[in-house]
């Protein structure tokens, strides 16, 4: 079949492109070991391509394309959900947060698991019982089909686009940092591979790619944790005693606390790493994020879609249980991965490669294998890099499939064709939409290079929680819910979440960037000693959320700080460091003792590292100044954030629910009322649920 040839050719093209351009840059993997990375990459690509070839032979109908013929078992689906959900952000990001900030990073991971309680209790089984392929199908069951499919498709595409952009940009940066492949090449390679899986193998290939990835990820994590934890006899207090006693950890905490650390003993600093408050400062913002996670996961279209792949509601239940075991187990392991990286690699080395800490797990792998110079260390690093690559591809494939199904099944077949499309037409529409979405993802990924996209993941969850979840939840459980309610609620919920983020601290505010850049270039004046300041609450709850006129913003307690000398500007600092190196090198010439020479060399290397870092900071400050020269306002015309939280959930989620409820109460919709009995009986019993296709 032609399709398969094209698939094979695409894979070959990706491999060729990747290997020719591979040596263009530098990454965490040294050049002489890169062949190993490519060998592992090649093996993973080969396996997934074989899966795609096998899946393509069984994918002919719309049900096979969107829902793998509903033939996935509960256990398989549980692994696939874990593979779909554990994106690079949670796999590398949370381990990184723990390695840099200790307790707060671990606390952050909890919400990602608790989210599945909502999925299990209120979403998975009813959706499986009444749905077909998409969120739109669930909503259209009792609401006006065309209106609900349109709004569901728009919301699905919005959520998927945010998440997809974050994944593409994050993936491109990650691959570049790990192995030095050019950013645009990485993004294109990820995109083409993912397209091959989705277009030819549909849901079946996507499912198995996700399963393979989840198994690799869990295996790699367990092995790493064994290596890290074994020296302490698998004792939790033993391991954590080593963490709190580690000088690297203590100096990281001292750095994070600044002046407050001056009166603390090393033991206190180490213990502080296991206490909250080093990273997450604003509790209201955390609650807002927690709401978005706990309610947003259940509204994520690519997660929802996974429940249509199993034969019955019982299998849907089983898949969530498995997913929770795998995802939760994985997050407990990240505690050891993150802390292990903090003591073995050290925050300084982690931050040197990636400021967000994403390199903690890969560097830990390299360390346990024997370090950067060793063969085994680099093989481990190669393996983790390949798992990260598989992770991105698998998550992106799931998202593209969700967006494409909204486009093809909801918009084209449901709205344009009024549900009268031939089976063949449906499959063609699905494949064409996948190609369109996939190419768009590659384009957006390349266009968004260098943008700060980290907040897009949180935004995707917030939109899903404020728009999709209220609509699905109330459609399933509230008799009076109707078409007008869900259309208005989804629109208002999504728009509010997006608008709040546009005026939040997530955006770039030129004034703040310029003043930070000036500090780097021109230095800071000396500061007199300050007395301790107690914590201050905001003047009202609204003032915690918005920068309103007459508000006193809340501020945490500040310890007394001694007088601080002036900090020099970058140019001055560089000149001083240059003199220092010259002086040290001159002194070295006179040395005869080999031990002293070695020590001098080490010291010189340290100062040189400092010089490189200062030069980097200077270059960044200069480019920032140039970029924002003359600008005073953000994209939205604001000088500083008006909405003070990073996460909009605390406002947009209740608002989404409220609008659905009010509009439903204010209007009448005959179909929504008439279909209630059938919906309620069917979602609870599974009578007439879409069955598995026979093979």
């Amino acid at each position: 079949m032609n399709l398969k040839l094209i698939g094979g050719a695409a894979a070959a093209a990706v491999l060729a492109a990747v290997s020719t351009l591979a040596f263009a840059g530098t990454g965490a993997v040294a050049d002489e070991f890169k062949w190993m990375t490519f060998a592992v990459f090649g093996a993973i690509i080969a396996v997934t391509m074989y899966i795609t070839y096998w899946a393509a032979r069984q994918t002919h109908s719309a049900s096979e394309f969107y829902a793998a013929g509903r033939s996935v078992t509960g256990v398989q689906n549980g692994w696939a959900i874990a593979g779909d959900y554990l994106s690079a952000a949670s796999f590398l990001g949370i381990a990184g947060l723990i390695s840099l900030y200790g307790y707060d990073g671990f606390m952050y991971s909890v919400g990602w698991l608790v989210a599945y309680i909502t999925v299990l209790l209120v979403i998975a089984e009813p959706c499986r019982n009444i749905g077909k392929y998409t969120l739109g199908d669930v909503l259209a069951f009792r609401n006006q089909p065309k209106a609900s499919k349109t709004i569901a498709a728009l919301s699905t595409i919005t959520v998927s686009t945010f998440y997809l952009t974050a994944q593409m940009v994050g993936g491109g940066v990650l691959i570049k940092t790990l192995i030095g492949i050019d950013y645009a090449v990485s993004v294109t390679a990820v995109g083409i591979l993912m397209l091959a899986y989705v277009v030819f193998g549909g849901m079946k290939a996507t499912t198995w790619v996700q399963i393979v990835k989840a198994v690799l990820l869990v295996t790699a994590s367990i092995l790493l944790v064994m290596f890290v934890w074994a020296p302490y006899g698998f004792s939790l207090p033993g391991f954590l005693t080593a963490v709190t006693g580690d000088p690297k950890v203590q100096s990281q905490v001292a750095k994070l606390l600044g002046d407050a650390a001056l009166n603390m003993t090393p033991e206190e600093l180490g213990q502080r790493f296991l206490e909250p408050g080093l990273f997450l400062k604003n509790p209201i913002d955390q609650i807002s994020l927690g709401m978005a996670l706990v309610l947003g996961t259940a509204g994520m279209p690519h997660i929802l879609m996974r429940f249509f792949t199993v034969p019955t509601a019982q299998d849907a239940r089983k898949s969530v249980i498995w997913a929770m075991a795998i995802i939760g187990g994985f997050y407990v392991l990240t505690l050891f991965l993150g802390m292990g990286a903090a003591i073995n690699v050290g925050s300084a080395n982690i931050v040197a490669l990636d400021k967000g800490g994403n390199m903690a797990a890969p560097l830990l792998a390299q360390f346990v294998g024997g370090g950067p110079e060793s063969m085994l260390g680099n093989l481990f690093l190669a393996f983790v890099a390949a798992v990260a690559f598989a992770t991105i591809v698998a998550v992106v494939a799931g998202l593209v499939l969700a967006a494409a199904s909204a486009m093809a099944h909801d918009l084209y077949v449901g709205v344009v064709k009024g549900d009268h499309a031939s089976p063949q037409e449906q499959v063609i529409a699905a494949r064409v939409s996948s190609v369109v979405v996939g190419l768009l993802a590659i384009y957006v990924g390349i266009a968004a290079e260098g943008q700060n996209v980290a907040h897009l993941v949180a935004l995707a969850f917030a939109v899903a929680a404020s728009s999709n979840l209220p609509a699905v939840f109330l459609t399933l459980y509230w008799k009076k819910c109707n078409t007008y309610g869900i259309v208005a609620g989804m629109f208002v919920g999504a728009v509010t979440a997006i608008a709040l983020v546009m005026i939040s601290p997530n955006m770039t505010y030129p004034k703040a960037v310029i003043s930070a850049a000036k500090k780097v270039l021109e230095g800071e004046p000396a500061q007199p000693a300050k007395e301790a300041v107690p914590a201050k609450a905001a003047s009202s709850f609204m003032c915690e959320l918005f920068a309103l006129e007459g508000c006193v913003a809340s501020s945490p307690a500040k310890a007394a700080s001694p007088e601080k000398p002036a900090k020099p500007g970058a140019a001055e600092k560089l000149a001083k460091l240059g003199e220092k190196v010259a002086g040290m090198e001159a002194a070295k010439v006179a040395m005869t003792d080999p031990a002293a020479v070695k020590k001098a060399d080490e010291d010189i290397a340290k100062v040189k590292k400092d010089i490189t870092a200062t030069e980097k900071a200077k270059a960044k400050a200069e480019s920032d100044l140039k970029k924002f020269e003359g600008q005073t306002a953000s994209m939205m015309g604001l000088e500083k954030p008006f909405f003070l939280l990073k996460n909009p959930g605390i406002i947009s989620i209740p608002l989404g629910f409220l609008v659905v409820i009010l509009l439903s109460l204010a209007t009448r919709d005959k179909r929504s009322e008439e279909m209630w009995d059938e919906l309620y009986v069917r979602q609870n019993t599974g009578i007439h649920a879409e069955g598995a296709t026979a093979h």
Partner: protein
Amino acid sequence: MMRHEINWAAIDADPRFQALHAKKTHFLWSLMIISVVYYFLLPIGAAYFQDLFKVKVWGPVNIGILFALSEFIVAWTIAGVYAKRANREFDAMAQEIINDAHNIK
């Protein structure tokens, strides 16, 4: 499939379905509320009860760490409790209604 044969309103009004609905609703809401409250205790505790979270109980292991770990245990337990009851009770009750669906008028 002959959908017209099934009288959805009659099933909805059937005492067996009403019993299933009442049991399930009560059970699901209880579990949901427990899990949400327990989850939000973590950020609230970390922000407003730091002194409690800092108390060391097992070497360097403090209450904060144990509480965070307990979040995992509670989440798994709730999932387990739900699955057990659904597998044993709700599925059987639903099956009875399904078997009889065409006769409920």
